[in-house]
């Protein structure tokens, strides 16, 4: 008996460091007065303009810190560059996780990088809130520690189709898109939604990137006479398409564009209001960027980043940062990674006041934002809409 007891004692002694490590892992990156958060983004390289997407979130952290932090803990961001490159992004993630030992991760533009990071972050078990990248495969299939805090590609695609069908008597829908995955990420879920509603697109057209004329496509559309057109095109091609629509007398047909185009930028490109008067785009916010509901967020960013030139991207990560702070507050001072994951899974219909749709994370579904508003010109003014003719 004594030998068995001694054996168990030895085993317990040998296993003690492992248990100690587990306990340490839960609170890694935490001190009495700080929570370190790894923030990854493309701060260099071709896609560095997307790093603007980090600004809103960082400004929100600073606002919370100025208000005393969360249960006395300041949110300390540790920034790492991914350069929108999967190898560099993986290095950044591994550095944050194993060297900087941050408590959690938030951020990441560039879906390709985020998809490549997923296995590493999933294996590490540390909470990660994806605050910008939209690819569905970052957060599906479900990974217990990965949460999506912006509308995913499929949510946006479905929102596009839903808006199209909200126009009374819409039966005939045509689709024009680029032949790339970016376009398919919008058009496939849109088609799926239309199919669920018993509608098959009357025409599916392709317009290649860099194409400078859409006459062939427009002539086919003239034959099909659609009630609505879904256009998954980049901004430059959208402008060409809209100009050709007007040129061939189809300017009255409404066109639904993606989140990849901006309403006013498209107007600048066409230089003719008549071409965009019936153009609508996915818009994830509750108001226009210069609207009254966005003012406090714009002021917040300006306060902490006075040189920042505001764009659509500047605001995208604020909503998920709010949801994070709310979850941290609910947990109380006794914070662990497991408690944070559990608290995030209890977020229900969280109104961020900036994203057009609330955030809901459940143990079964971590894609938190299920829809998006739409922006279009109403009385010649950019207006955020819930559905056809219904201002947000």
């Amino acid at each position, binding site marked *: 008996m004594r030998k068995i007891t001694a054996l168990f004692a030895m085993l317990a002694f040998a296993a003690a460091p492992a248990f100690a490590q587990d306990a340490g892992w839960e609170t890694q990156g935490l001190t009495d007065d700080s929570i370190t958060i790894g923030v990854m983004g493309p701060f*260099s390289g071709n896609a560095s303009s997307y790093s603007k997407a980090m600004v809103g979130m960082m400004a929100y952290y600073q606002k919370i810190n100025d208000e005393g932090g969360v249960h006395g803990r300041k949110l300390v961001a540790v920034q790492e*560059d991914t350069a929108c*490159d999967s*190898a560099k992004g993986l*290095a950044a993630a591994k*550095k944050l996780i194993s060297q900087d030992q941050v408590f959690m991760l938030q951020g990441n533009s560039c879906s*390709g990088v985020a*998809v490549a990071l997923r296995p590493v972050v999933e294996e590490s078990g540390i909470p990660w809130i994806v605050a910008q990248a939209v690819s569905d495969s970052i957060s599906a299939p479900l990974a217990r520690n990965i949460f999506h805090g912006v509308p995913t590609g499929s949510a946006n695609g479905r929102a596009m189709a839903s808006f199209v069908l909200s126009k009374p008597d819409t039966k005939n829908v045509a689709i024009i898109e680029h032949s790339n*995955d970016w376009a398919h990420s919008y058009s496939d879920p849109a088609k799926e939604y239309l199919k669920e509603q018993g509608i098959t697109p009357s025409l599916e057209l392709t317009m290649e990137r860099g194409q400078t004329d859409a006459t062939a496509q427009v002539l086919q559309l003239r034959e099909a006479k659609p009630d609505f057109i879904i256009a998954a095109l980049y901004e430059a091609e959208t402008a060409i398409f809209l100009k050709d629509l007007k040129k061939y007398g189809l300017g009255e047909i409404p066109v639904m564009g993606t989140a990849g185009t901006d309403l006013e930028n498209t107007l600048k490109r066409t230089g003719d209001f008549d071409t965009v008067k019936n153009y609508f785009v996915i818009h994830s916010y509750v108001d226009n960027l210069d609207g009254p509901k966005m003012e406090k967020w714009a002021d917040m960013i300006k306060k902490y980043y006075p040189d920042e030139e505001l764009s659509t991207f500047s605001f995208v990560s604020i909503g998920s940062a709010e949801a994070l702070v709310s979850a941290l507050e609910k947990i109380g001072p006794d914070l662990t990674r497991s408690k944070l994951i559990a608290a995030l899974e209890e977020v229900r219909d969280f109104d961020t006041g900036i994203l057009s749709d609330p955030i809901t994370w459940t143990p079964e579904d971590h894609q938190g934002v299920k829809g998006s508003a739409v922006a279009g010109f109403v009385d010649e003014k950019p207006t955020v809409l819930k559905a056809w003719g219904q201002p947000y």
Partner: protein
Amino acid sequence: MKMPTARQRRLRTILFWAVPAILLLVPLGTNAYTQFIVNGMLISTLVTLGFTIVIGNLGQLAFANTAFFGIGAYGSAILAAKLGVPWLLTIPIAGVFGAAGGFLASAAALRGIRSYYLAIITLAFGELMRWSYLHAKPLTGGTDGLPMPRETLFGTSLTDDTVKFYVFLVVTVLLVKATANLLASRFGRAVMAVRENEVATASLAIPTSRVILVTFIWSGFVVGCAGALFARHIGHVFPESFGMLHLIASFAMVLVGGLGSVLGAVLGAVMLTALPEYLRAFPGMEELFFGLIVAAVLVALPMGLASLLRRLSPIFVERFYREAR
């Protein structure tokens, strides 16, 4: 350039095997991040090595290196993800795919196309391959890329950077040694002769076409194997990993290390893989500092870092090596 004595050559052989033996201990002092960077250095070494033997040793301005790399990476990923071939087995097969790419790329050179024209044709080959990765969606996953399946090796997950390190090290050491031996052989002398004067070489009854063909194929094999390692290193293969930026980075590694030098390929790869990681401390300024450092090295050492070591001791002088003019 002073040539090494017989004793120094023996010492060089000992040194060659001592370095990887010491490297076996690296995982004892690394974390997941630093190990990942070290693994990246091994891959870059092979990529740079494959590149330098074509543009440095053979003297052909061919830029198909990134194409070979992509072919190897996608070859490995497709075999592993679609056909369930164990990743370890895909490494030599990816090398063969890369070699086939090398064979195709050599066609232009064999047709007598040289200099800038060869550069443009091989660049176009690289872009054509990238276009194929984007559009052959059922096979390559298109813009979404192709994830590598999760696998274990001797009971340990291949997501573990230490396990990957040992495989990468073995492959790298074998290919570096094989390339060094090839360049030190009669064939290597023929390669250098083609670079110096192709017509004069042909007049000596050396089959220059065969020399060009085999060099391209070997380059493709080495870089194709590197592609297979890269596929496992990242765990997900994307088309954008094989674009112009990668080519420029590899070219910089070749020049910084020393054009046409095996030792230079290793030094250039190690330095330019590590440097961006050190520059992480200067967010927003990384590209500026990186450019300045690379420019400074090239101004101070136009023949690359390897030339510095050659000046220190003849041990580092490679057989048949001639500085590119």
